[in-house]
């Protein structure tokens, strides 16, 4: 609840200018679910859990890597008037 509240307060302030990078960033952060997947795959309690956990790690990691990469790429493109072309 508190987190959702913090989320509302923080995100309300973000300018529409950055909504696309915001979404790809939250996507990457959301992939923190990888933590649960790592434990599942690592504990290897049953074969099923290990396999599902491993696939889950793959899909979450692709989001982490891809999400951070693209967010940074997008943000690098936002330049104020003064700046010369990179």
């Amino acid at each position, binding site marked *: 609840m508190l987190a959702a509240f913090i989320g509302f307060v923080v995100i309300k302030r973000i300018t529409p200018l950055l909504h696309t990078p915001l979404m790809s960033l939250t996507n990457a952060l959301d992939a923190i679910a990888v933590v649960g997947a*790592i434990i599942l795959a690592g504990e290897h309690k049953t074969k099923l859990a290990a396999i599902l956990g491993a696939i889950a790690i793959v899909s979450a990691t692709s989001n982490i890597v*891809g999400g951070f990469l693209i967010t940074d790429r997008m943000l690098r493109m936002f330049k104020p008037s003064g700046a010369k072309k990179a």
Partner: protein
Amino acid sequence: MNGILGSDLLIEITYIIATALFILSLMWMSTPATARRGVFAGEFGMALAIAGTLLHHGIVDYKLILIALVLGTIIGIPLGKVQMTAVPQRTALSHTFGALCVTLVGTAEFYLPREVPMPRFMMAVLCMEVILGALTITGSLMAAGKLQEWLPQRPITYKGQNLVNLGLLGVAIVVAVILVMHPERTQLFPAIVAIPLVFGVMMIVPIGGADMPTVISLLNSYAGLSAAAMGFVLNSKLLIIAGALDGASGFILSMNMSKAMNRSFSNVLFGAFGQEQTSAAGAAEAKPVRSATAEEAAAILSAANKVVIVPGYGMAVAQAQHKVRELYDGLTKRGVDVKFGIHPVAGRMPGHMNVLLAEADIPYDKLLDMDEINGDFPQTDVALIIGANDVTNPAARNEPSSPIYGMPILDVDKARTVMVIKRGMGAGFAGIENPLYFLDKTLMLFGDAKGFVGNVVRELGGGGH
């Protein structure tokens, strides 16, 4: 024993730091000046959390984890390098991956052998996790397919559609309730994965291209909520918080988007806009419009003091953003004040236009959102509309019978001259005629956005008047 306690404490600490970094990360996202720092904070937090998790004492199989991490990285890198115009479908696809992870973990948790039956609360959140996750998987996949144009963008509707969809969701919830009441009936579990998977497809089928910004945000929110639910199942505060942040962000964006289209959530999801109105459009063709050539347009633009460019999805489709940059450069050099007016739902996801224009090296302080720019139109000499339609339709302001009446629009009709680059006189997404095109001060510039802007740029450069 001591060592184990020590590592538990360490893991706890890394999680707390990671949580704080995630919150900071979003705070820094609020302005372009600090946004990149936000990404670093997020990356650092993520690395810490993963490192902390690897210390978990129950982990025996590091090889499997490593292989999966490497594989995920290999898939992730190309996903981080897609074209900027493809960002909406990439985002939708990443919602699919996120939801897939959560759903798989939920499923595995359900089938884990345990000495005591799962407590009711846990079963309830687990069901929520899996239902939201599963519908996000197929829903986002469908959305990505529509955005990539593998699937038709036009909404597909049939009689009783809403009834079928709501019925499906209802059944899934009933099954979930039964599972919570009788956790021993494990044979029911596949149903709460399968039904939402079907529901996800059915939910997106009736949704058209222009509603994508809302839908993507909504799916973003679902993905976040299912991760938060997973946090409750695993009793991980980090996961609950990250999921809630994502859920809240998606929710706020979808609220913004629906507000910008003057429609409620349920209207976007169950409305299937654009079917009924098509009949109204046909009559328009006969009315006279004024058109102009690239040469005339260039002359008018270079004589102006203030120009506002209004980009829309058409600009993205035509890949015209770099030509638009050249136009911006050409006009700025002549001392014309050029700004961009961007409607919240322009494009296919929130903020889509801003990213495309930023990619073309247009300074972000020239990109203004609807509320900031609308006051400027009365002092604007030329409003140049590139590939946008419904968001400039004055009928939304003054024609109560119009289907888009009440939708906030860019007041381009208040500018002294309006120029519209458009391929033809066809109606926009909503199939609604745009009276803007028939105003005396409106010049229609017929042609492909990229080609036409290119011609205008050439006239500006080579004209030498």
